[in-house]
């Protein structure tokens, strides 16, 4: 039992915090910011503990393995969770003061699902964790928004419903595909596809269909084309502080799952999934970048930009090398901080400006120079300009992909990165150059401000000195792909 506690110490802690928050709220309801701060601080404690607890090991029958890969992801998810909570504190306390505990509890449940997901080596556990991660997200999308402008509640319900219906459809696809794969291979362990036929005959058609259905299901979660259509609508409708979390953590978890399954389990059958993955990656880059161009709502724009970014990350996975996987991790980690930062700044601006359209955030830098500056840094990182974190992320991914011989996609990617630069600059320009119709200064709550500062610190810090994260990512990737 003690071995279990050690193995799942961090996950236990996260669930315990959720329980604590719920109980506290049940017996002593609070309407202030205390619940959120306690959650954030306790999560911070868990993150700190992750540096002292050595929980490496494996659960019986190898359904769960804790190694550097898991530790990397746990820390990443915890960081995203803390920032997500910090970003939500002010908003929740203002908008739904009586319904805070459930929000945090659901967020923590989702977080626990993600953390477990990274170590799952068994299909059953993986599917269950995936759902534990997803279910709370469906709810949080439609959370709260009763007292905003008239259209907001409708949009939030719509956002939740869109995520749910497409998500449930993908779950159905995944489950059916898994039935085929697990049935054909006879084991629920995530491992090589044993063909059973004569040597060299490759997987049976049914297995192939199953594998690709599973791939499609995961494609939904990371928001890759053509399973991406929920992304912009959900980003636009759901509460912005939550979208910040939604836009990074589940995607990181989805990419981690893809890596576990494709590179860890099915690496020998890459001839089956690689072409599909490359098409999905290329399509995501193209669609994401081109659809982002005409957007006038900043959140929709970022939704499409996220689709494009996922295309780059998938490109790195498609290299099938340890270096490529490490660069996926680096890319995802920088993306987490960058995108959280962008959404937080937008949220801060929108709370005071009444909307997320580019016209509403115009002139932001005059209303709040530091928010404007932070937004510029985040946008530059998304666009991939040195010396911010996103530059290395893009460069590394392209380098590894080129090395792996995916030259066509690299050329496409770099060309599209220029298109990306255009719309990121459009946002930056509207904050800097255009005159907004408002001149009131933007006041940012302490928690939200702190979250933005942390994101800024990482984006700039990793831009100047990417070495520690690169090494950590390399170390982590070794758990999935051995060799170079």
């Amino acid at each position, binding site marked *: 039992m003690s071995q279990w506690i050690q193995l799942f110490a961090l996950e236990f802690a996260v669930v315990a915090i959720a329980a604590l928050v719920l109980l506290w709220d049940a017996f002593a309801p609070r309407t202030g910011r205390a619940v959120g701060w306690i959650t954030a601080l306790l999560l911070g404690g868990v993150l700190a503990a992750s540096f002292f607890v050595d929980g490496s090991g494996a659960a019986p029958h190898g359904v769960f393995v804790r190694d550097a890969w898991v530790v990397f992801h746990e820390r990443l998810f915890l960081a995203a969770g803390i920032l997500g909570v910090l970003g939500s504190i002010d908003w929740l306390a203002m908008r739904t003061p009586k319904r805070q505990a459930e929000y945090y509890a659901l967020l923590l449940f989702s977080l626990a699902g993600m953390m477990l997901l990274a170590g799952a080596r068994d299909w059953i556990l993986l599917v269950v964790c995936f759902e534990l991660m997803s279910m709370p997200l469906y709810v949080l999308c439609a959370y709260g928004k009763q007292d905003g402008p008239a259209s907001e509640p409708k949009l939030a319900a719509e956002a939740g*419903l869109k995520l749910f*219906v*497409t998500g449930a*459809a*993908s779950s159905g*696809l995944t489950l059916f595909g898994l039935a085929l794969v697990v049935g054909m291979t006879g084991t629920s362990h995530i491992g090589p596809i044993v063909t059973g036929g004569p040597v060299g005959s490759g997987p049976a058609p049914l297995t*192939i*269909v199953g594998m*690709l*259905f599973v*791939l*499609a299901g995961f494609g*939904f979660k990371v928001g890759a*084309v*053509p*399973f*991406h*259509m929920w992304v*912009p609508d959900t980003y636009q409708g759901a509460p912005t502080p939550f979208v910040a979390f939604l836009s990074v953590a589940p995607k990181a978890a989805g990419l981690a799952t893809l890596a576990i399954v494709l590179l860890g389990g099915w690496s020998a059958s890459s001839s*089956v*999934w690689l*072409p*599909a993955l490359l*098409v999905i990656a290329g399509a995501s880059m193209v*669609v994401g970048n*081109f*659809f982002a*161009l*005409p957007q006038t709502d900043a959140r929709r724009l970022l939704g499409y930009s996220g689709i494009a970014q996922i295309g780059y990350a998938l490109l790195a996975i498609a290299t099938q090398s340890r*270096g490529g996987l*490490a660069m996926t991790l680096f890319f995802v980690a920088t993306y987490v901080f960058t995108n959280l930062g962008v959404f937080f700044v937008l949220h801060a601006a929108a709370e005071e400006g009444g909307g997320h359209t580019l016209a509403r955030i115009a002139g932001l830098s005059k209303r709040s*120079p530091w928010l404007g500056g932070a937004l510029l840094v985040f946008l*530059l990182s998304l666009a991939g*300009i*040195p*010396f911010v974190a996103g*530059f*290395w992320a893009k*460069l*590394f991914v*392209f*380098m590894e992909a*080129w*090395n792996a011989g995916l030259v066509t996609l*690299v*050329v496409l990617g*770099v*060309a599209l990165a*220029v298109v990306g*630069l*255009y719309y990121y*600059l459009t946002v930056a*320009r509207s904050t800097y*150059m255009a*005159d907004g119709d408002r001149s009131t200064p933007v006041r940012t709550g302490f928690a939200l401000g702190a979250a933005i500062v942390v994101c800024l610190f990482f984006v700039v810090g990793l831009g100047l000195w*990417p*070495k520690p994260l*690169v090494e950590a990512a*390399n170390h982590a990737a070794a758990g999935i792909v051995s060799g*170079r």
Partner: protein
Amino acid sequence: MSSLQSWAALAVLVPLAAALLCVVLPPLRRAGKPAAALCILASLVATAASIYLLTQHEAGAVTRTEVPWIVLGGKALASIGVNVDGVSVVMLLVVCVVALCVQVFSLAYMHDETPSSYGRYFTLHALFLFSMNTLVVAPNLLQLFAGWELVGLTSYLLIGFWFHKPSAARASVKAFWMTKLADMGFVFALLALFVATRGFDWNARLSTETATLVTALLFLAVVGKSAQFPLHVWLPDAMEGPTPVSALLHAATMVAAGVFLIVRADPLFAQAPATCEVMLWVGSITALFAACLALVQSDIKKVLAYSTCSQLGYMVAALGAGSAFAGFFHLGTHAFFKALLFLGAGSVIHAVHSNELADMGGLRRKMPVTTLTFGIGALSLAGVPGLAGFFSKDFVLAQLEGKAGWIPWTMLMATSFLTAFYMGRVLIKAFGGAESAKAHHAHESGGAMLLPLVVLAVPALAAGFLGGVLAEWSGAEYHVHLGLTPVVASCLAIAGLLGAVMVFGRGRAAPFAGVLESLDRASAVDRTWSGLYRHVLLGVSAVAGFVDRYFVDGLINAVGYTTIESGARVRRLQTGRIHDYAMAVVVGALLIALWGVLR
């Protein structure tokens, strides 16, 4: 880290420190004057460091210190550090001196700005100096690229400094867009170089194909940054920024970064004769093309902008001819006299509150110092024998002798003539002749503006004599020889100036009144000149202007328009209906699976 490298690092880090202080201490920045003082102090330190470096530098010595920066799989891929050699020491000095002069000049030039905007301006300048010095001392191409991008970014902010002017905002976006487009070449070049050598060193030995690929991609970046045909269109637009910014960025430093890159990566370019051939032609065409356009501009800054394009064309052509030193030499002298010209133009603009040549005239009596220094710069640019521009341009031309069937040589000779001609035009229109209405109230600028002019006039006069020393440091061959090229070039330069006097000096009390009068008596000569000007030169310029406006610029605008239009059209696919989204999921899965089993 030896003391030399510490000095170089100092030149990089002190401006950064000043910029950071201004950024993190908003009260300092908003106060304006203190921020300016701090930034100028930083530039002063950097200049002092670069001068000290120059005095301590031993010819041919290359020393570098590097710290691992990016580690991949336990192996350092790239490093940051400083590289001290003949090229970087000289370039550092040029950049620092010009930046310092420009900043001092700006003290007076920008005094109408609000304090916070004043502070922001100098913060950006300090940031720019840091970026440029990062680029200059870079020990590998990756750091060079980092500096390159930072320079691009700061320039974007500086061009758009008056962002409340829509034209300035548009120009800054255009400049950024164009140079970014070209920077893709740099990214690809880095990728290709990395794949070939697992590193970013410019001394790498490559196969001819790889070298050609890498250098061609690098050259694409240079075409954008150094405003070579056909990506030159952003440079004239960029004149929307404050004039000292133009002096710093669009004359002396930023646009020269492209040329500097080629000089730096010379070992790579030396392995790729095909790229050099292209460079030779692109440079020559740019030089001639831009000179034709410079001829017909009515805005003094635009004349100088096109002239910059043209001179950069000289440098690129020299590099294409295989002489890194000739390009670098011209880069150095050009930096001084072009910065001088821009600052002089700034002084004039400040006095008459207009960019238009038509609003000037007769300023020589009102602004004697400006006239004198601007005149030195103009004559230097025109290539009058004895001045800095003459030596470097002559050396460039000498390198081109016999290359590619003398055609580039001829084109650049023609450009020499045109250069002298349009500079003569500017001189006469701005300073000669009768006073215009606006010029009537003009008065000489203050000391803060004149001092940089005088300081810069010295190297514009004399830097040419340093060619030998410079060559020795860079380990290149340099000797002035009295052959065909210098004679023809001198004659053409003088002919161009005289031609300008003939065409533009008539009817006005020109500075060369005596010469003019004697020549004017032969009115046939005059008519010939005027006719040549009106029918031939203006005709050529009109064609060039047409190509520029409708073809090059139009093509680029069309690309941008199409991109946005296609985005707007496809977005109808996102219908908003859940059923369609579910359909996409199912059909996507179906197609992927279908393809999977059919393959």
